[in-house]
């Protein structure tokens, strides 16, 4: 009974946990349209460097972005764990994000999410919270920041 009450009191959100390099990130599940395996990506010349290209998702041409390049990490290395996460923000067109691995779905409530203290030395952050799931820490991706147009690479 108590447990139920607690669950009601705190808003909880489901996140998909992904891995980029050694770090784990969470993406709000409500924005995720689809998760597909790595497939051949058509390169588009003369575009922002973090756009790997475009793919065909059920007859739609969807741009694919490399989170690694966008974050300034070394370029993706495709393995058979690599996935493309198709996210759809509200009324915007879908966009694909390449991640190293998709791990699990977790439910986090408010209490287990910490605010991020913004470091003034870093101009830009792609994270809007840190979730604690047992012993592991999950950085919660701020999708708007990831997708938005800001040339940082």
């Amino acid at each position, binding site marked *: 009974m108590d447990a139920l009450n607690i669950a009601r009191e705190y808003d909880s959100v489901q996140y998909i946990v992904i891995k980029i390099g050694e770090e784990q990130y969470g993406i709000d599940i409500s924005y995720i349209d689809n998760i597909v395996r790595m497939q*051949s990506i*058509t*390169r*588009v*010349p*003369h*575009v*922002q460097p973090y*756009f790997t*290209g*475009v*793919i*065909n998702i059920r*007859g*739609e*041409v*969807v*741009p694919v*972005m490399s989170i690694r390049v966008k974050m300034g990490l070394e370029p993706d290395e495709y393995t058979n764990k690599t996935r493309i996460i198709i996210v759809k923000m509200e009324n915007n*067109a879908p*966009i694909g994000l390449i991640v190293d691995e998709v791990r699990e779905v977790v439910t986090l409530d408010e209490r287990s999410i910490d605010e991020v203290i913004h470091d003034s030395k870093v101009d830009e952050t792609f994270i809007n919270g840190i979730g604690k799931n047992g012993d592991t820490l999950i950085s919660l991706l701020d999708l708007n920041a990831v*997708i938005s*147009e800001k040339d940082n690479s």
Partner: protein
Amino acid sequence: MDVSQYLGIFLDETNEHLQTLSDQLMILENEPENEDTINEIFRAAHSLKGMAGTMGYKRMQNLTHDMENVFSEVRNGKIKVDGHMVDILFQALDALEEYRENISENQDEGTNDNEPIIKELQAILNGESAEASDDKKDEPESASAEAASDSAENSSGSEEGKWNDIVLHEPEQHVISEAIKNSQKVYGFTVYIQESCILKAARAFLVFKALEELGEVIISEPSVQDIEDEKFDFDFSLYFVTDSPIDKVKEAIMSVSEIDHVIGDVIDMDKAKIANEDDEEEAAAAHEAEVKETSAKNAPAASSAPAPAAPAAKDNKGADNKKNAGANKPAVNRTVRVDIEKLDVLMNLVSELIIAKNSLVSFATSDNQNSHTGFNEQIEYLESVTTNLHESVMKVRMVPIESVVNKFPRMIRDLSKKLDKQMELHMSGEETELDRTVVDEIGDPLMHLLRNSADHGLEHIDVRRERGKSDVGQIYLNAYQDGNNVVIEVKDDGNGIDTEAVKRKAIERGTITPEQAETMNEKEIIDLLFLPSFSTAKVVSDVSGRGVGLDVVRSKIGALGGDVSVKTKLGEGSTWTIRLPLTLAIIQALMVVIGDEKYAISLGSIQTIEDVAEEDIKYVEAREVINLRNTVIPIIRLRDVLGVETEKEVGSNLVVIIVKKGDQLAGLVVDELIGQQEIVIKSLGKYINCSSRLISGATILGDGEVALILDANVLI
């Protein structure tokens, strides 16, 4: 009952009727005696009036009503059609058009009563010339208004404020006393509907709807339910709480059509409770009511013993529903009217598709040894079905350009008067079909070109006579299909483009230097006309001459994937040619391979494909060129342009695709050709910012891969 769901139909039909009116008026102007035309006009005006009335657009209805009256008199041979009358009628059409636009934008007809037009129409009816009647007009009207109010006063003795018959129960009394406490006003109204009205319930509903915008209906007699079920005579009474003055409320009620009149007054709570006894006193109060016209007939026997009022709860519920309906205003959808035959074909194809799918399923589940050949057969069948399906869907999107061009005769007529030039418009090929999106956009550019021809092209009558041309200037608008393109020509037999004048103007404006002007050929000079803010009109007229015409034409048509060109001969006229792709979504393309990537190039821009030996490449100003049949063509290596990294084995020959933009040619070097293919254009979306604009879109190939579409025009 919510009329908003009929809005789309209403707008569509209004368009059609307005178009009919406009067409027929044009005919009428030339043949004032043509009876068929007059009948046609009368019918269209009548339908318009009916529709506007049903939708509750009072002003629109009034105007069409007067138009209808005029036509009715014309039909009866009582008045003759003359130029003045046609002018007025065209003005009325414009006013109606304005109402229609207002309605399509915000579901409201606006507040323009267009009184001058109505007055003119009535003047025509009265058989007077417009000027003479203008002053006189007011008098009879006010006189009749007075007469009406007189009779209202006289007859008000027989007017019973029927609302006094309503028995108030506890909840209603409570609401009323609350309202009075809040210094709101409580009125009683009795609304009389014209006895000729067929849809009483609908009118009553509209009255309620109008009232709910101003306040709250507390109780009605008969009950709302009964009114909706049409269980009442030609009147109903109600109590109404509002902040608005009584005149305003009455106005709102009267704005509903087919309402004969309404009486009402402030409610005296004490009397109301007692009800039913002091009719006379109430009647005296009622006589102040502003009543348009009354007669003895409109006091039908009071409904027998006041029925217990409908529970207030019910009333409120109804009100809530209506409020909700009002809140989510549906935006007017863009629609295509589709020939039912086209839909039938589509439906057949879909059923064939299902059959094809089913047989594939049965092949997959059966262990038949021959299944391989059967399978292939089914695939072929499926292919033919999908091809047909695709074709039919494209056809559904196609609409004749008629809907755009048929407003032009009217425009030319107006221009002819405004510019004081005689001119005739000849149209052909109105039935030519184009994709709906193209048709929507093509109107403005065409209008610009026609105006251009009328204003700049055609000479004044004395000049025409001097040149031995007929007095009446000729403008032609021809449309026809040419392969995968649709061509629309605007031709006039006027002055043509005076290249010297264009040159002078350009120099004057600093667009070009006199030295440049010397070396320019005719084509280049004419191209100057398409530059922004360039106009050769000596006088800025409201027809043209603001220099916003031709550059808009070019950019708009460019955006549609077409181009515009002009041929002209000084003194003999000019021909403007617009070339548009049949549809935007699907193009014929040549698939090529560059490195290990596939690209599509629109077939429309490709001239030829050449096999060029490496040693034939020459250098001019450090750029690679080839000399092809005596034309020097620059070479563009797509590998470098597109940044393709993989190396290819160096062959001795290059595959060069010669592409054309206007008069310029360029050779694109590719690695390999795949072949011609029909491709569906998909947008890359707004995330990807292709700075060079080299890629105009993408397409999905048969194997599910994405190939990019190269815009050859950007390369040249």
